[in-house]
């Protein structure tokens, strides 16, 4: 790890200034991803601004939203009574992430900013368009079993690793930020970027812009939501395929549904096409199959990850049957 200056400011304004004024500066909260990246040489900063002294750790329910401070730890959000009751998919996604120790450390703002687990990205000795723009993508014709079948480009097919972000996307969450040019509210669906020709840019944050909170609307549909995560081992592992669903059933008919996916795409993935295939219809083998086909209609499989195209359709069908109580 390269050497850096360290600061621990007491206000958001000061933290934003300390990072904004120096191109090589970065924020640290939990540090659970950042320090690994810096040890591996996948990232370097000449100044680290520790934001843990900032008053951003509260989880508060008011005015129809649950506002989760950016410094709230994964463990605390997952077990918060209001989150468990009103946003089960968020609680489940967090508890299916990482390990108990990491959940005690990692802050939810940083969770949205964690970098891909693509082995080529993490290995400073490999080419990687995300780490060194223009250097190439060995995953396209290489070890790509864990890579994306949706949202990829010729430059990058790395999967976004966050379970939490997939859950938030199913619930229309909003990311609240403070930056050098003021505050803004970013719908979670607009927060992460497709790789395109600039895979090094993963989100819309400007340099020095800090996530201060995530707001999640409390709705009847959010209360009927759930997360399914399929992994290579039972626990402490990233998703091969994950499905977040929120459901509004009227009798047997789907009045509304949200379907978002992890493990298969370059960013947290929502499928309006799969949702449309179910809206106004009953949950049956035929409608589930149609939703699955709609989800993967644009999928591009590589040598080792074609199984995900099939697996995600079956995961979607099984998960919606379970959530809808349809056997």
């Amino acid at each position, binding site marked *: 790890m390269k050497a850096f200056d360290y600061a621990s400011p007491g206000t958001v304004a000061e933290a934003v200034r300390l990072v904004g004024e120096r191109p090589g500066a970065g924020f640290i909260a939990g540090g659970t991803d950042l320090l690994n990246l810096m040890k591996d040489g996948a990232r370097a900063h000449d100044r680290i601004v520790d934001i843990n002294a900032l008053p951003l750790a509260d989880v508060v329910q008011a005015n129809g939203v649950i506002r989760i401070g950016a410094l709230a730890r994964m463990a605390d959000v997952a077990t918060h009574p209001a989150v468990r009751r009103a946003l089960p998919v968020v609680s489940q996604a967090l508890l299916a992430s990482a390990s108990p*120790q990491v959940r005690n450390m990692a802050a939810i703002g940083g969770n949205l900013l964690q970098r891909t687990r693509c082995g080529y990205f993490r290995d400073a000795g490999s080419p990687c368009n995300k780490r060194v723009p223009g250097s190439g993508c060995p995953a396209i014709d290489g070890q790509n079993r864990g890579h994306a079948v949706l949202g990829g480009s010729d430059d990058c097919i790395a999967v976004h690793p966050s379970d939490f972000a997939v859950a938030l996307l199913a619930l229309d969450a909003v990311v609240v930020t403070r930056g050098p040019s003021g505050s803004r509210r970013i719908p979670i669906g607009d927060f992460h970027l497709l790789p395109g020709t600039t895979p090094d840019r993963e989100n819309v944050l400007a340099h020095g812009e800090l996530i201060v909170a995530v707001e999640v609307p409390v709705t009847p549909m959010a209360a009927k939501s759930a997360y399914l995560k399929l992994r290579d081992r039972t626990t402490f592992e990233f998703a091969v395929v994950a499905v977040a669903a929120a459901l509004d059933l009227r009798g047997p008919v789907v009045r509304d549904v949200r379907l978002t996916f992890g493990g298969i795409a370059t960013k947290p993935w929502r499928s309006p096409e799969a949702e449309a295939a179910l809206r106004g219809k009953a949950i049956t083998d035929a409608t589930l199959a149609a939703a699955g086909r709609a989800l993967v209609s644009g999928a591009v499989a590589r040598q080792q990850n074609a199984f995900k195209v099939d697996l995600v359709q079956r995961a979607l069908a099984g998960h919606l049957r379970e959530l809808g109580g349809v056997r």
Partner: protein
Amino acid sequence: MTVDAEYKRRTVLKAGGAAAVTAALTAASTPTAEAAADTSTVDITLKVNGQEHRLSVEPRVTLLDALRERLDLTGTKKGCDRGECGACTVLVDNRRIKSCLTLAVMRQNHAITTIEGLAAGDKMHPLQSAFIRHDAFQCGGCTPGQIMSGVACIEEGHTGSADEIREWMSGNLCRCACYANIVTAVQDAAKELGR
């Protein structure tokens, strides 16, 4: 056979490491960008096992390295140094964390507990005794981390069943695969502690 305390394994390793560092520094006589960066240290106070330690560290020093290399608390092990194995688990304000994934400078004003601080004088913590009773280790490399994690697991109330213990101990890997005995030891200590 008696072993001279002067020649503990660790003393030898340290001496060898120092020689290697000297050689490397001599070879690298040209200043590099990395060497030219500001490597100034900061004075910090760490409260470990109830005792305050003042030390001067570079900000990039992890809590794990500060405990082992500066405070000589080598019970906390360095396994993967990437948060994947759990050998470096310690408690900070009674919550278990991986000490390789945090900076020492970030952990001032917090109560840190390592494996060395678990026993009450000569009396081992019930989980330490349970590990011995149930033969819950072979090589011992992961054991301090397993025990620190297990203490927190019991405190959190995640010992309702063997499956629950397995899930909540999943952040600690054991390459000798003593998992069955570790689960039994945690279960037994939890019972003894009234959980």
